């Protein structure tokens, strides 16, 4: 992973900023919410107190809720026209099986309707006027209106219409003397549907089921009509709603609940939505919901149309503890705070008051803060990331430059073309560069020392050699014995060979100087090679000497003399390694911007370790007593360094490798045109 991306990753640490901000905003929002909760609870409690003080009528005990009807009810004993109300059916069964009897009351403008469903799989059917009716399956219904009560026995021997017998409280009362209804059965039990005019309707009702177990069993539940509890009928009341409206604060929705959670009255409106574009609201609500909002309860628990509220908070209030809840409003992007408080009349909980207030201000406020924060931190992230990326790019660029320079220096064994980059930077990289520079200087100095060692040595050797030679020349003119002459001859031979060695040592350094002063010229490389090859042919002797040169002229700008010299060295080298009956092959290929010359010869392979160093001066792979016998020109490995110098002069390279088939060795030099400039010429 490059430095750049590492730093970019580090830039991600600026993300801690929005995180912290988000936490802060959330905390702030929580505080605000808490404040609002308290305020709403307080006003709810105040409202509750004033309602109690105003002696608002509140039912006691478990009430039976009479649903206002929106559809027509057909009396047929079937429950399908009750479908909407069935979920609100109230259980009036015996304690151990409350679901045995489920009832729903409803009313329109004139009638009070009742649907009762009884679970009873074992049936003993009899009509209500039958004498055994009391011991068969039946329902006891008691109704009270004011002071008078009346009880009925509901039973039917068959599905269809039935009439209920009055069992108690026959005397004068508004309550209906006759109750008729529809009876239907299925495998699980029976259903009763009946109605009475509102003018005769009771205000309290008790219902109990008598299940005469079949096959002579004891009754599962007996319902004595006397001790069945009378439940008040609860209705939504406009009068109470008006009372509520009197006391309710503005922009707050108020609902008065019975102690079962039935809505007895409601009033008020939530604050109107502010007119912002819905898309923006949607986006804000998304942010708010996703990042800030508390756990919201489901909105449908608090829908304004519900006849009964079943939310946890309501039950909590009904048990005597004020509670608050947040839920999303029907409008996008806002929340509603609901506060429920118990209504106590003389210490007894008679119901609850539910206040709802739109918490629009909060999301807007916090969203704004959060959005601002997000924007700011995104900007900060971008800026920090950008700056770091830029910085990293610059840094890695600098490091790359340093590395490239170092690698160039390695290639040229410590010689630098100019100064190291960054060497005057005042940071650690500058330090590194300077250290590199020192190191390279050392290396270069040492390399130069090695390079010039040969020429220095040859210089130093020249003078003593001259002394020896001139002394021998002078000796020649003395009168000497023949034996002494022999010795002189040998000494002269030795001196000659020393001289040859010294000359060879000087050649490389002379060549370097010559190269520094050589001017380029345009010449045909193919022609140069052709001339050289013709000159080598007689030297090859018994060896097979072949060449492959292009016919077309290959024009290059460079120093043909030098190239010819390099070829001489290569040929010399090849000649000395090739066996008498071996082969030598010279080829020339044109490149896009130069040429490649290869000189391959049959003979011993190169040791792999030597291939790199072959072209350094004073390196030789010849073994003692190689193809050239003693007495030949000495071999110091200077020849190939000349080849390298010539190749480098022409911006090329010299390399050696073994042939793939292992039959011999191939030397290869690539040459390019020299830059067309006149080099400084001291002559």
């Amino acid at each position, binding site marked *: 992973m490059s430095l750049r991306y590492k730093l970019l990753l580090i830039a991600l640490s600026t993300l801690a900023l929005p995180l912290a901000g988000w936490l802060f905003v959330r905390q702030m929002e929580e505080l605000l919410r808490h404040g609002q909760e308290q305020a709403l609870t307080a006003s709810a409690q105040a409202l509750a107190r004033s309602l109690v003080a105003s002696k608002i009528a509140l039912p006691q005990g478990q009430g039976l809720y009479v649903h206002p009807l929106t559809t027509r009810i057909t009396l047929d004993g079937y429950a399908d026209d009750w479908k909407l109300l069935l979920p609100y059916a109230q259980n009036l069964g015996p304690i151990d099986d409350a679901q045995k009897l489920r009832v729903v009351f409803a009313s329109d403008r004139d009638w009070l309707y009742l649907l009762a469903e009884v679970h009873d799989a074992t049936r003993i059917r009899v009509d209500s006027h039958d004498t055994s009716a009391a011991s068969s399956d039946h329902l006891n219904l008691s109704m009270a209106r004011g002071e008078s009560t009346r009880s009925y026995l509901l039973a039917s021997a068959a599905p269809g219409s039935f009439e209920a017998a009055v069992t108690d409280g026959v005397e004068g009362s508004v309550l209906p003397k006759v109750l008729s209804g529809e009876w239907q059965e299925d495998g699980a039990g029976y259903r009763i549907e009946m109605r009475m005019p509102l003018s005769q309707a009771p205000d309290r009702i008790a219902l109990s089921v008598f299940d005469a177990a079949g096959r002579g069993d004891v009754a599962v539940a007996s319902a004595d009509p006397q001790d069945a509890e009378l439940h008040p009928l609860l209705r939504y009341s406009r009068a109470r709603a008006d009372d509520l409206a009197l006391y309710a604060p503005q922009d707050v929705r108020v609902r008065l609940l019975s102690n079962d959670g039935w809505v007895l009255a409601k009033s008020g409106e939530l604050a109107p939505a502010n007119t912002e574009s819905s898309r923006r609201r949607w986006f804000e609500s998304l942010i708010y919901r996703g990042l800030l909002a508390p756990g919201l309860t489901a909105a449908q628990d608090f829908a304004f149309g519900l006849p009964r509220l079943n939310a946890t908070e309501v039950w909590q209030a009904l048990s005597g503890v004020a509670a608050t809840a947040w839920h999303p409003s029907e409008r996008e992007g806002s929340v509603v705070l609901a506060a429920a408080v118990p209504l106590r009349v003389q210490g007894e909980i008679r119901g609850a008051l539910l206040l709802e207030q739109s918490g629009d201000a909060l999301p807007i406020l916090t969203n704004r803060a959060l959005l601002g924060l997000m924007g700011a931190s995104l900007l900060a992230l971008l800026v920090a990331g950008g700056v770091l990326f830029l910085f990293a790019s610059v840094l890695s660029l600098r490091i790359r430059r340093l590395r490239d320079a170092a690698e160039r220096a390695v290639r040229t064994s410590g010689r630098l073309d100019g100064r190291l980059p960054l060497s005057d930077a005042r940071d650690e990289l500058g330090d590194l560069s300077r250290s590199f520079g020192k190191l390279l200087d050392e290396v270069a100095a040492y390399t130069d020392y090695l390079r010039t060692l040969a020429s220095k040595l040859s*210089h130093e050797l020249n*003078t003593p050699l001259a002394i020896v030679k001139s002394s021998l020349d002078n000796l020649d*003119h003395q009168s000497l014995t023949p034996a002494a002459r022999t010795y002189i001859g040998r000494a002269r031979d030795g001196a000659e060979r020393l001289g040859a060695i010294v000359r060879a040592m*000087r050649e490389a350094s002379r060549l370097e100087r010559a190269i520094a002063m050589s001017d380029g010229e345009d010449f045909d490389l193919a022609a140069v090679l052709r001339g050289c090859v013709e*000159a080598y042919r007689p030297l090859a002797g018994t060896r097979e000497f072949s060449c492959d040169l292009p016919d077309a002229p290959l024009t290059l700008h460079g120093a043909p003399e030098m190239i010819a010299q390099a070829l001489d060295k290569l040929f010399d080298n090849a000649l000395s390694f090739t066996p008498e009956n071996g082969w030598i092959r010279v080829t020339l290929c044109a490149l896009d911007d130069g040429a490649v010359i290869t000189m391959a010869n049959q003979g011993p392979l190169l040791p792999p370790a030597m291939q790199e160093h072959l072209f350094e001066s004073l390196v030789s792979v010849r073994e003692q007593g190689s193809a050239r016998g003693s007495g030949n020109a000495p071999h110091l490995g200077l020849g190939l360094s000349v080849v390298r110098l010539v190749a480098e002069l022409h911006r090329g390279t010299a390399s050696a490798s073994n042939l793939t088939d292992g039959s011999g060795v191939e030397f290869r030099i690539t040459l390019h045109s020299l830059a067309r400039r006149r080099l400084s010429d001291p002559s």
Partner: protein
Amino acid sequence: MARSIAIVEDEPSIRANYVEALTRFGYQVQGYATRSEASRAFNLRLPELVIIDIGLGDEPEGGFELCRELRAKAALLPIIFLTARDSDLDIISGLRLGADDYLTKDISLHHLSARISALFRRLDALSKPMNKETVVEQGPLRLEAERMRVSWNGQEIPLTVTEFWMVHILVRFPGHVKNRDQLMREAQVVVDDATITSHIKRIRKKFIALAPEFDAIETVHGVGYRWRV
């Protein structure tokens, strides 16, 4: 009357050897170890030929200084640099100061005496009427072997002895390729190929300085040089 030669050389063994050898060849030889010593002697009396080493004692360029002094005193005095330093730069500096030849110390005494006698011959030839047989004419080139003078279109080309002999062998066999060994033998020097190449380069430059169209010396790559006819 033996000709007088001065050798300025800081290495006593070499100096002594050369003095002895040249004395044996019949010259009257005087050796000097330092520049100041030599200068003092030359102020009294100039020798007829001077052999100078470049590095003299603690003066690495002492020989050049001495050469300059001598040229100022005598324009025709033959001066030979005999030195261990053989870089092109040194050779060029030496020849620019007007030395007649520049030899490295590995030259044999025999070769050295050949140079000396050639220079003396040239001196003599300058004061004698021209000897017709020894003049070679090749196009615009005129080469007087006796006086070791070469001129191109009548303009004299200032060549050193070594250079003159190289031109000489090329001109004597125009159109023939002479390889480096032959040039070396003719010029009586033992040097490496690079040195021969730089000699030829210098010769060309000297011609071109006076005749920009000069291209008579042709390189035959890998073989040698020839005089273009």
